[in-house]
């Protein structure tokens, strides 16, 4: 056990946890004001539901000894997960660090279903998806599963987190169908500053995500850290130049998207490529995602916040370019195609395809399962009214005019079955 590593990983875990509320701001700004709280709650509730599912069974299915496809149940309820060393840090800390990844991955999928999914169905989806889809894929790559044995490179989760979430998003968007106003009315972001705030906080947290994936306070962590700075910078520059050339007016939503795309793309490569390769990777990732986003908006596919394009495609580009640009001189693990090892590219492609295919099938199964118990979609009326009021009984921007205080009955001493609060107005009617 090394003190510096423990200290570093404690901080990295907190940084990654911050990414989920950051994602709430990123997504929350992009929807209409009547759905702002619902969208942010989709991220916030992952902090609770996925974290618990992870501790109860998810961690075990991903990391306890099992077969090539899924881990065992020996660590369910964190049995045997204590302060003993896992590498140079306590295993319990490793569990928490991995838990923050499970949380953000599940929350990422919500971007495909905002403004229409029934919240209770979403919560059930979150919990089941973590167990059925996320935990096995994490096991394949990081838990000693078959992709790890094949030699797939995924430093911080380009395949496990982003390709996985992107494929799930695509399937979820198709399964739920488009929002009723989609392609009929302009649906505009209600708070672009929120989206920029979210992008900034995501970048900050992502240093924990990528550098922390070294699992030690080491030179390797420094490499991943620097690459996490440079790749989004390159994506931001390329995106801005593309917008300047195509419309003459670089947008703030575009900048926020570019930062996320660059971060997604460098995730699988962070500890495997040199800094100038990270610049190339970040810059290159911006172009296909930009084109995919522009094309998607003209189709009937309502992947509302473009999870499939930004995370699925961005993650795919990053994973494949890892197979091209990886350099043994930097990482001591493997070379990519550019450095004389074309087989690595094939391995990377296999990993992406396998994760995407499994995620698509698993997500569809989970959605069908949830649909047996609860309708997946809010009614058209609730969708029109907005999900903040219909699902949460709150509004993001209430002014309080015309609000009448409802007082519970405080008069009588607590009689046996407590009476339901009286819903009578205190004052007169307006």
């Amino acid at each position: 056990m090394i003190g510096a590593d423990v200290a570093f990983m404690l901080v990295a875990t907190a940084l990654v946890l911050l990414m989920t509320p950051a994602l709430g701001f990123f997504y929350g700004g992009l929807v209409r004001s009547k759905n702002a709280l619902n969208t942010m709650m989709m991220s916030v509730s992952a902090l609770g539901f996925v974290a618990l599912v992870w501790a109860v069974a998810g961690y075990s299915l991903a990391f306890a000894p099992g077969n090539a496809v899924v881990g065992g149940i020996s660590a369910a309820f964190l049995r045997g997960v204590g302060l003993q060393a896992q590498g140079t840090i306590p295993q319990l800390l490793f569990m928490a660090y991995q838990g923050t990844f499970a949380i953000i991955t599940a929350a990422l999928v919500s971007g495909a279903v905002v403004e229409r999914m029934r919240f209770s169905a979403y919560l059930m989806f979150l919990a089941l998806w973590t167990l059925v889809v996320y935990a096995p894929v994490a096991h394949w790559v990081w838990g000693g599963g078959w992709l790890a044995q094949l030699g797939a490179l995924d430093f911080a989760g380009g395949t496990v987190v982003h390709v996985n979430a992107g494929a799930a998003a695509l399937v979820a968007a198709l399964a739920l169908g488009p929002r009723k106003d989609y392609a009929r009315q302009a649906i505009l972001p209600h708070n672009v500053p929120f989206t920029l705030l979210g992008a900034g906080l995501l970048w900050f947290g992502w240093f924990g995500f990528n550098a922390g994936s070294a699992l030690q306070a080491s030179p390797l962590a420094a490499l991943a850290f620097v690459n996490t700075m440079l790749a989004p910078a390159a994506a931001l520059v390329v995106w801005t130049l593309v917008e300047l050339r195509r419309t003459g007016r670089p947008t703030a939503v575009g900048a926020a998207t570019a930062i996320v795309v660059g971060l997604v793309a460098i995730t699988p490569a962070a500890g495997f490529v040199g800094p100038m390769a990270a610049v190339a990777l970040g810059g290159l990732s911006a172009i296909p995602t930009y084109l995919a986003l522009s094309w998607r908006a003209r189709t009937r596919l309502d992947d509302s916040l473009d999870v499939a394009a930004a995370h699925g495609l961005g993650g795919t580009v990053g994973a494949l370019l890892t197979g091209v640009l990886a350099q043994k001189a930097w990482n001591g693990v493997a070379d990519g195609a550019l450095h004389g090892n074309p087989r690595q590219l094939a391995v990377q492609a296999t990993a992406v395809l396998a994760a995407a295919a499994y995620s698509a099938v698993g997500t569809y199964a989970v959605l069908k399962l949830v649909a047996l118990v609860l309708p997946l979609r809010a009614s058209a009326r609730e969708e029109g009214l907005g999900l903040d009021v219909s699902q949460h009984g709150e509004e993001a921007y209430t002014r309080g005019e015309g609000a009448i205080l409802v007082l519970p009955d405080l008069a009588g001493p607590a009689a046996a079955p407590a009476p339901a609060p009286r819903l009578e107005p205190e004052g007169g009617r307006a």
Partner: protein
Amino acid sequence: MKLVVAIVRPEKLGDVLEALFRAEVRGLTINRVQGHGGETERVENYRGTTVKMELSEKVRLEIGVSDHFVTPTVSAILGAARTGDVGDGKIFVLPVEKVYRIRTAEEDQAAVTPVEEAATAGV
């Protein structure tokens, strides 16, 4: 001339505008307003505080039209703003005493006639 005042659901505004433009009604003003029209109150909770929201968000449109445009305007709104639930809103048609177009100081009928039509009529 009449002033058509319509109070509609905010989520129906897009449909209403589309219908109005289809009916070639081009001059209008909108406000976001709050009101109460007999719809069921929404109960909301903020920490320990439970409130009944007596006022609902609505959009008010004001449209000055010439007499023969009243029916197309009203039917466009009726068709587009309706959901069938309580709270769909109201349409009021009010008489107008005098209208001026500020740019040209035109009055009454000419002032509420869209520019292209007036130009064509003049030729």
